[in-house]
């Protein structure tokens, strides 16, 4: 972070897996290190360039047109905040303008979201698993997504600076699919049953070992994930097996 220029010209959104009961001190740490102002995001906060928005503890961070949402929707991938809802909503709103970065971490949060960014023309970056303290999140993303850049963490600031200054085609259409919209709305506290959550996957014979809801299989290209979708009868969306 300390190597990012103050005039980066982009906004940065961070989800960090943490327990609901911790203090959200990441912005304080980032502000000591870097030159771009970081803060825990608040709901409906406008999106400005050269700012770092951090998901506060126990809340999802989502992107909508021109502002962020900070919500208390159900957990995803066993976490709140989770990375997939952030990536999914960013890709749905800003398409090819999005760069998704997956860093060190356990299990597979971030993989489905990175796939969604890639499929709508955005760029994907993954920390080199050999460089990561916990390699499984980068490894899972690399296995399932045709990732654009795989670099050690020390090189990411330079890479982001270069990528954020690249021109993108003004004609790129943003993919607005119904499935992604439903999943974003559920994370944004909408009633999943009324959202038509039944329609985004195929009911499976499995139940979620965590919440005991019926699991549906959702396909993202060749990537299949199981979600105890919705309020359908289950509110919690999480990938399984994780």
């Amino acid at each position, binding site marked *: 972070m300390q190597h990012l220029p103050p005039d980066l010209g982009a906004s940065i959104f961070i989800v960090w897996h943490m327990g*609901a*009961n*911790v*203090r959200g001190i990441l912005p304080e740490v980032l502000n000591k290190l870097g030159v771009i102002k970081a803060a825990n995001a608040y709901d409906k906060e406008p999106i400005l360039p050269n700012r770092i928005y951090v998901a506060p503890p*126990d809340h999802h961070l989502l992107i909508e047109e021109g502002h962020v949402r900070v*919500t*208390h*929707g*159900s957990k995803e991938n066993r976490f709140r905040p989770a990375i997939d809802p952030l990536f999914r909503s960013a890709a749905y709103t800003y398409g090819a303008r999005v760069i998704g970065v997956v860093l060190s971490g356990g299990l597979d949060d971030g993989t489905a979201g990175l796939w969604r960014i890639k499929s709508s023309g955005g760029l994907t970056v993954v920390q080199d698993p050999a460089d990561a303290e916990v390699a499984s999140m980068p490894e899972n993303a690399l296995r399932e997504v045709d990732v654009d850049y795989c670099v050690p963490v020390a090189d990411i600031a330079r890479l982001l600076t270069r990528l954020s200054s690249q021109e993108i085609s003004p004609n790129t259409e943003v993919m607005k699919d119904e499935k992604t919209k439903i999943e974003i709305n559920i994370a944004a*506290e909408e*009633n999943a*049953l*009324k959202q038509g959550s039944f329609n985004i996957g195929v009911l499976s014979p499995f139940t979620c070992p965590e*919440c005991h*809801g019926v699991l549906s299989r959702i396909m993202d290209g060749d990537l299949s994930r199981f979600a105890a979708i919705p*309020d*359908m*009868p*289950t*509110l*919690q969306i999480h990938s399984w097996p994780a």
Partner: protein
Amino acid sequence: MASVTEKIEDSLYSAIRSMDESILLMNHIGDHYADANLPKLAAVSFKKAKEAGERSDLIRKAVHGHELLSNIKLVEDAEAGG
């Protein structure tokens, strides 16, 4: 405190799940009665489904407003002026 508040969230989601099941079931039964040309029974079933939906909306509001608490969180909120 953390365990208790986490348990509350799980219980509220469990209640919503059961209520959603009852909505689906009542609508299913309503369709069945309508197909069998029993309109009064169908109407009652659909009405019960709608009422359950209104109750589940209340619980949804409760779970979205529910905070997972801990002593750290209390101290933090106190420092922030409540």
